[in-house]
């Protein structure tokens, strides 16, 4: 399981430092982590559990316990004199949020709306983006209808692949045929749709991947995410590769697959807006996803969830049992946190904003005192960044550059 970063111990009262108050005008977002799955996928190192009962935390009582953190957050922000904007987005991730009954998700969303309200358009109608991840296996038309009624606007299905053998390697339980069905139901009830794809599973051929791309485009969703498979240490997949049962994904082939996907998506009218995300229009980009890359304010609820508010990052206890215990005492479930100084905040902007199509203003490099025209010229010469954007003061990655984003970052600030 992914290690949490090292930071300072988090204060029990969760109060924010005064320095955070200067960031109140940024939009506010909520992430909700549901740490349950029916089975753990071989590649997954996220914080999730398959048991229904975990040392006093059951899937049945989890929603109520998570709502405790929502109440806690509301109290902490007001005691810190931090007045957040109404929520611009809410995102339920996991684990498998749809492992819980729709009524639980509705209750959590309700508590969030009660505490913070939703962003509204000039006509007074809520325009906040409310998404849940969903496993094609455990939602049906009725479930999706309940979500819609509760206020959800968007659903993102974990499709991963259209090829049975690849799904098996990834330990996914759904059949490929299930995906078009659930996407269709989601559209029927009026939800925006997205599918997640994973490329580079051991044994996946170029043709397999092309088939997944074609299938995903065939469902005509509003949004597609495509992530390259990363072999995380400690996962079953890593052990299988170490034992020689599976072959480690080849980075060059991963690059080829990314290029294939980008070409197919663009040809179908979907544009990239972040390294791993494409959408049919600007309005169907995931506002929640962008909030991470734009260093907005967000509170992450649930075990192991990360938060960022006003230059303070913190992360919760990972295990559901150690997560709920402090909440029951009215204390923060956070394990560690760090307060970023001005320089670190700027450096983060470089490594986050550069991933978006909107790009990184060169001014950030100047503020960091690392602006070197020679380096930028080199990146243009290597066709890693777009020349025209650079001349307008923006670093925007080219297709090749997106694949080498980390190298570009090192060139700019290391």
């Amino acid at each position, binding site marked *: 399981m992914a290690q949490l970063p090292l930071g300072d111990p988090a204060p029990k009262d969760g109060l924010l430092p005064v320095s955070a108050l200067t960031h109140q005008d940024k939009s506010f977002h909520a992430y909700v982590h549901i740490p349950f799955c029916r089975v753990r996928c071989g590649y997954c190192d996220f914080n999730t559990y398959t048991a229904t009962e975990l040392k006093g935390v059951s899937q049945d009582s989890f929603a109520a316990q998570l709502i405790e953190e929502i109440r806690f957050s509301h109290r902490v922000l007001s005691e810190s004199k931090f007045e957040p904007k109404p929520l611009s987005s809410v995102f339920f*991730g996991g684990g498998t949020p749809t492992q819980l009954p729709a009524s639980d998700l509705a209750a959590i969303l309700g508590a969030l709306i009660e505490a913070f309200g939703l962003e509204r358009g000039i006509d007074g109608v809520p325009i906040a983006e409310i998404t849940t991840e969903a496993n094609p296996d455990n939602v049906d038309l009725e479930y999706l209808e309940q979500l819609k009624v509760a206020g959800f606007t968007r659903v993102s299905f974990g499709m991963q692949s259209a090829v049975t053998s690849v799904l098996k390697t990834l330990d996914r339980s759904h059949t490929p045929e299930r995906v078009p069905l659930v996407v269709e139901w989601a559209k029927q009830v009026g939800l925006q749709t997205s599918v997640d794809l994973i490329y580079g599973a051991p044994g996946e051929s170029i043709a397999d991947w092309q088939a997944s791309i074609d299938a995903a485009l065939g469902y005509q969703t509003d949004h597609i995410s495509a992530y390259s498979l990363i072999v995380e240490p400690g996962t079953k997949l890593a052990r299988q590769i170490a034992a020689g049962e599976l072959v480690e994904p080849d980075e060059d082939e991963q690059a080829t697959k990314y290029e294939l996907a980008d070409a197919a998506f663009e040809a179908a009218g979907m544009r990239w807006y972040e390294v791993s995300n494409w959408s049919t229009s600007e309005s169907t980009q995931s506002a929640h996803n962008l909030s991470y890359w734009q260093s907005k304010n967000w509170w992450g609820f649930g075990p192991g969830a990360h938060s960022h508010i006003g230059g303070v990052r913190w992360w919760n206890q990972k295990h559901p049992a150690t997560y709920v215990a402090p909440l029951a005492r009215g204390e923060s479930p956070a394990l560690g946190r760090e307060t970023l100084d001005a320089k670190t905040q700027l450096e983060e902007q470089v490594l986050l904003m550069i991933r978006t199509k909107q790009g990184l203003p060169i001014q950030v490099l100047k503020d960091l005192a690392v602006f070197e025209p020679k380096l930028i010229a080199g990146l243009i010469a290597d066709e890693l960044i777009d020349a025209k954007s650079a001349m307008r003061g923006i670093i925007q990655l080219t297709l090749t550059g997106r694949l080498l984003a980390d190298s570009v970052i090192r060139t700019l600030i290391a």
Partner: protein
Amino acid sequence: MSPRATTRLEPAKTNPELIRNFCIIAHIDHGKSTLADRMLQLTGVVEAREMRAQYLDRMDIERERGITIKSQAVRMPWALDGKTYALNMIDTPGHVDFTYEVSRSLAACEGAILLVDAAQGIEAQTLANLYLAMENDLTIIPVLNKIDLPAAQPEKYAEEISELIGCDPESILKVSGKTGFGVEELLDHVVRTMPAPKGDPNAPARAMIFDSVYDSYRGVITYVRMVDGHLAAREKIQMMSTQAVHELLEIGVSSPEPEPTKGLGVGEVGYLITGVKDVRQSKVGDTITLNSRPASEPLTGYSEPLPMVYSGLYPIDGSDYPNLREALDKLKLSDAALVYEPETSVALGFGFRVGFLGLLHLEIVTERLEREFNLDLIATAPSVVYEVTMDDKQEITVTNPSEFPTGKVKKVLEPIVKANILAPKDYVGVIMELCQGRRGTMLDMQYLGEDRVQLRYILPLAEIVFDFFDLLKSKTQGYASLDYEEAGLAEGDLVKVDILLQGEQVDAFSAIVHKDNAYAYGVKMTTKLRELIPRQQFEVPIQAAIGARIIARESIRAMRKDVLAKCYGGDISRKRKLLEKQKEGKKRMKMVGRVEVPQEAFIAALSTDGEKKGEKKSK
């Protein structure tokens, strides 16, 4: 059998008739230090409880490797036939790199014990030193050591020795330094057969410096052999080569710990302390005389030892450069043969071009720098000194391949050596093959005893500074031994091969090689670098070139993907820390043009050849 001497003769008043000065000539692991240890115990100068193995080897490296770098002298009492004698044992460096120091030690003695491992027979280095001893008219006592070993073949090797020095095989002493067997008899033999020193006690004082050691507490300790006259504490002495005058703060003998005395007389061996801080002010080979009554002639002409091999030494962490300079300055205090000057490499940054007497010297110096001064170093491939004459008659001395001139070269002279290889006769074929592949010319071949052969070759020094010794050892299952001596300069058909990364010359990889080997070198380096240098954001061509002519090329394909797919549930801290780690990694990179080359790649590319040199492999 002699009893231990009950009284010791007083230094400064010892009758030269009762003095014996000798050294031990032996191959590196033939047991010289163990035999010396046994003598120290038997004569009672070191009590058993104070005994530590290889008592005389002071430097850690010496003790670990079992080799002697600096020589030292010990005065031991020994009684025979009712008379007490003073034996001075002068320890000599065993390696050819230190031939100059060896010859000075030999000059301080009247006799030498030729110590040969009874299971191995005589080796090439020993032959070289034996030759020097015989040239110095020393009385030789041949001794077979390690006769306690099951594999010992004393008769066979006694035969071999007798053929070499022309003695009766029966007369050769058999000892075991380990058990002490025969050592007393050997000491008796030293007294009986070795001549006493001769000198004029009334002539102006003349003492020869045979070793000079830097001690961080006491300054330079100079070891001398008195030839004529007398020296006493508090007298003013003069170094005859420089006319520099110093006061004798302390004079004494080692037994084996320093014992101050009133003075030193004819034939005696001892030490002096004058308070000078740099061994260069007290040079091995120089003659010391009294300032008040100086001698007119020095004992032997002093000659500066010349470096044979050069290598660039660079700190891995560039900020260690001042520390490297300081460390070299300190080492120089105790190593008069060390020469160096600052050098800049495009690829490796700031460092020093360092000259060495030979490969072992190089290895010892780099190891001492790393161990005693805590430095991490990159050493460039060792190179020899070339004399280049241009078409316009201009002459250039090249100690660094990257300085090889680019204009019209008329001729290139390179140092050559006379190599002496000893091996069992079955290996003659592979040795000849190896030497011919290294541009060797055979001088002669001789049988030593029944099954051992001595091959003598003229070889370019440059051909043996790389991996020659390792190859010789591996091709002969470790049986061959090698010794070489300088044999002047010879013209060679040599060219400089440059290695270019993305068109930028990497100076550290330039090499001067024979025309016929240029292509092989180019292919080897380009292939190796392709494997060692990580892929970059762009394609990197690697070329080997002679001047403007490309002779080999490879390329490193551009890296295509280096991006994290997503941030786990908004865990930005993790991503940032990853970047910080990568930033750290980048600091250890050297930039060649726009190409990032990890330090490790330089080390790996430079170390494969000529890494393991010299003696330590011969065990």
